[in-house]
């Protein structure tokens, strides 16, 4: 009986939070829409800027047919999935890397006294539409890969593709949150997180098989970046580099990663002491 009441109450809280988030984000979007031209140019700019990463892949593939056993088109698919996961996460939560500034300027103290979740407020503090430029670029590469690859599509593969993009986003989001927690301890250290967020995006854009044992252990498993694109992509492309369970377990890994990051965040916020100025 009591469990049912608690369940219903937490559902109400969840619904309330979702409503609040939607409301705040709509306001952010409306604000940016006032400067449409500037926004459009920014998005177009980042669309082209992010093509540089793919240009590197193209330049390298001029000199050989396969990298780590993967063809250019397969790497393009991998790149698209990883990039889409990263950029959607970046859109929703990427600005958490400015947490150090929020703490320094005392804005985080404002967050603490408001009657809403801290993580929710930090997430809703921005929604930079220009980041859609990178999402669009990744999508372009992904669609190109799908067109040229001749994948034997099944229902399971379609579901896994969408699930992978979402769980990839979730894994990146948990890295962003954990990186922000470091800033509670070392203010001015926002760049440390970059090694694993932007670095993580770079890592997951290539087949994991090309990295040495140590990089693989740290980046593909300990930080579960292998599940962002590499393992599930094998299932979709019909590759057998790794065992089947590893190819399918991505969404579970994402849920664990998000849970862990929320626990660490809650702990960090509870320990937080304002600088007081």
């Amino acid at each position, binding site marked *: 009986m009591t469990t049912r009441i608690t369940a219903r109450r937490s559902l109400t809280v969840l619904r309330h939070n979702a409503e609040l988030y939607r409301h705040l984000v709509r306001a952010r979007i409306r604000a940016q829409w006032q400067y449409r031209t500037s926004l459009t140019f920014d998005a177009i700019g980042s669309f082209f800027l992010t093509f540089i990463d793919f240009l590197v892949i193209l*330049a*390298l593939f001029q*000199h050989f047919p396969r990298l780590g056993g993967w063809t250019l088109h397969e790497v393009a698919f991998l790149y698209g999935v990883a990039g889409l996961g990263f950029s959607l996460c970046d859109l929703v939560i990427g600005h958490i890397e400015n947490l150090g500034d929020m703490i320094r300027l005392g804005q985080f103290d404002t967050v603490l006294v408001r009657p809403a979740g801290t993580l929710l407020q930090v997430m809703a503090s921005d929604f930079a539409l220009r980041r859609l430029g990178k999402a669009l670029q990744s999508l372009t590469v992904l669609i190109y890969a799908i067109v040229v690859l001749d994948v034997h599509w099944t229902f399971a593969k379609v579901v896994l593709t969408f699930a992978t993009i979402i769980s990839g986003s979730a894994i990146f989001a948990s890295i962003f949150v954990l990186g922000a927690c470091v800033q509670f301890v070392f203010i001015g250290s926002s760049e440390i997180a970059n090694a694993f967020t932007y670095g993580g995006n770079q890592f997951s854009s290539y087949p994991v098989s090309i990295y040495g044992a140590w990089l693989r252990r740290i980046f593909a498993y300990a930080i579960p970046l292998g599940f962002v694109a590499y393992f599930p992509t094998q299932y979709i492309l019909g590759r057998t580099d790794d065992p089947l369970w590893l190819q399918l377990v991505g969404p579970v890994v994402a849920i664990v990663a998000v849970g862990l990051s929320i626990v660490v965040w809650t702990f960090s916020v509870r320990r937080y002491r304002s600088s007081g100025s």
Partner: protein
Amino acid sequence: MIANLTDIVGNSARRESGLCNVGSMRFAWELARREFQRYATYRAATVAGLFTNTVFGFLRAAVLIAALRAAPSGRIGGYGTREALTYTWLTQSLLMVVAVWGWNDIALRVQTGDIATDLARPYGFLGWWLARDCGRAAYQMLARGIAPLVTGAVFYTLAFPSSAFRWVWFFFSIMLAVVVSFGLRFIVNLLVFWTLDWRGISMIHNVLMSVCSGMVVPVAFFPHAIASALRVLPWYQALQAPIDVFLGKGSTPTVLAVQALWAAATLLCARALLQIAQRRLVVQGG
């Protein structure tokens, strides 16, 4: 008051040519020293940045090693594994020194209007920023330049120069690279006088700099015709040129000569653009 500042700044522009006399050399030195100290205050940021540079070094090294292993001859564009690794760690070392991702200090001052005060000061605007940028580069060289290269040398076998002379030419080449990069950044920043928004221009600058300077991949990896064209463009001089000198690629005197030409050309362009911008500048307020 709406006044055209040409009269005042005209004087300072003339004084600029007097950068060589003892007084202003001393002044430039003091400016550089203070900029060095200003950067040195952000210690946590330096350590964090160093950490990230190094992690990226490992990631990029892994990609290049795999690429060379995949290439039929084991070499790409004249790079073997050892050279490619040296290239990777050199770029990680130099990217802050030559400010690959640009900076917008002047652009922001144009946007806020502070530029009017800067231009009214009794010394050359270009020389003032050049001196400060030398201080910045010196700090980045010591704080962010040495550690990545040492890390690379600890974990991999790198191709270090065999003669002391090459080290001297390498440092000389880095200095020229800083000047070219400064000239380009100065020009990009001044364009804000016309566009009023720095984001668009700096994005174009970033694309050109990343691709044409050899930051993302050695220029020699591009198809031959493109690589030859890039070699004579200014962006190449800002990063790939010192790496070429370090690795002994191409004729070192030629590389240095092209760098020196571009250093002079970018500074002259910067100066000409500054004069045009000053003529355009209308100070409003009061």
